[in-house]
């Protein structure tokens, strides 16, 4: 470690109003964010109305954010803009709403109507809220989406998660073999590559529930499999701790630096 340096403590909280620049929306935003963060942290003491208040706002703004973003980036961009893609954007920009509708009707032959099929399908998801008799229509977009997703998932999973992984496992042995030929062979590399192969087989065997894991081979390999899985979970736990602590450090940094101005860099 290098020598410790003591930072001179300052106190410059975010300003909502200053005589020179007047009202600061950014300053107000920081104060609101800080207070809401403290409301959330109050849960550490116990569940309380301040936490519930912050939580309710969170649910509302999360979905509201999605609405705004999807409206512009999903519907406007992928439906409307695609429909009018053959028309001149400069002309469209200068037209007001009714003029725009009139222009679109006049140029109906230049419009791309395919996105409307998806728009209609997507709007069918609303059918349970509108009428119980036609609520079954909501299954159509979901059937399309799930069929589409399942169809693309089969080759992707087979290629990336099975064939490529099998190749990677055997490739590791060919790397060791190549090192034998070029004189860089290391017995430990061969040993650890065998450990890796054993681990993969043992893990797969452990998760295979169609046959009973008994006897010294069946039961033993399954036991070995659970040991490898435990090592994997231990590594995952170590990483998860790191991730969560990083988030907490990020929040503390916001409170100490942006809100209270106790640290400056």
């Amino acid at each position, binding site marked *: 470690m290098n020598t410790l340096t003591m930072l001179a403590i300052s106190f410059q909280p975010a300003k909502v109003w200053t005589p020179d620049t007047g009202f600061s929306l950014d300053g107000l935003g920081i104060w609101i964010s800080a207070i*809401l963060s403290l409301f959330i942290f109050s849960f550490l003491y116990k569940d309380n109305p301040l936490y519930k208040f912050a939580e309710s706002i969170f649910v*509302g703004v999360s979905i509201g954010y999605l609405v*705004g973003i999807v*409206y512009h980036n999903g519907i406007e961009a992928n439906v409307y803009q695609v429909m009018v893609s053959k028309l001149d954007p400069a002309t469209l920009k200068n037209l007001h709403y009714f003029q725009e509708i009139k222009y679109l009707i006049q140029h109906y032959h230049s419009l791309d109507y395919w996105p409307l099929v998806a728009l209609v399908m997507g709007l069918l998801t609303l059918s349970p809220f509108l009428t119980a008799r036609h609520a079954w229509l909501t299954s159509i977009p979901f059937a399309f989406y799930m069929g589409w997703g399942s169809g693309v998932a089969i*080759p992707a999973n087979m290629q990336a998660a099975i064939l490529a992984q099998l190749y990677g496992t055997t490739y590791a042995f060919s790397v060791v073999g190549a090192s034998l030929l070029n004189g860089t062979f290391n017995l430990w590399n061969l040993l650890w590559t065998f450990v890796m192969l054993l681990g993969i087989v043992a893990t797969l065997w452990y998760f295979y529930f169609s046959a009973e894991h008994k006897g010294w081979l069946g039961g033993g390999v399954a036991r070995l499999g659970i040991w*490898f899985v435990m090592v*994997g979970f231990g590594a995952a736990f170590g990483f998860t701790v790191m991730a969560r602590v990083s988030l907490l450090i*990020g929040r503390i940094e916001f409170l100490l630096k942006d809100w209270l101005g106790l640290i400056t860099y």
Partner: protein
Amino acid sequence: MVTIAIPWFIVLGFAGFTVYALFKPPLRRWVAISIALAVGMYMFFQFFTTTETPAGEYFNEWFQRFNKWAIIISGLTVILAVGNLLKIHILKVKKLQPGWGYSFITLLALFTMSLFGILGIQFQKEGIPWYQWTFRWLWKTFNVALDSSMFALLAFFMASAAYRAFRARNMEASLMLATAIIVMLGRVPVGDYITSAFPTLTSWILMFPNLAAQRGIMMGVALGAIATSLKIILGIERPYLGGAK
């Protein structure tokens, strides 16, 4: 000719079938099942086609069209999320059930954010009306703070849970505990100051036993995903029917 007919059959055929099923209730579930079958099989077989022939190119054109429809439909499912939220919370406020105040706040936050979102999602404030950049300010002030804080809480609870529950009761728990401690110390510089074995062991754990376990799990999950996908395409499993058979 056949290649051109297939996607047209899927779209026009099923549009007609849907209209017919509107008048014949017993046929209704078959509309969804056959859409899933046709689209699923089309997307699966497309993987094996080439764009080096005119037929292959046409096949690919419809593959892209289905992708674009999937993009639009996944965006529109937000309507469902909003609809469900409105249904639950409006009912709570209407009937003045316990916690109706929090529901009112949720609805207020939802409407405010949605309204400003539709009005504009600009970043820069100069030269545009205030209601076109308010959405971004609301996101920065509310979403960022609340989202980060919610997850930051987990650090405390994780530490407390690890301290209480992490005991080396048997071989499996001991392995998990030992690995977690080695990785936790190996992934921070202070571990290297204690002993250089921590970062070395951490790298070894990640590249060999952890890799083996993750690969085994990955392959198992992939096999399960393939089986489930096949079941959905073939109509053996019908999650899109929402509980109806």
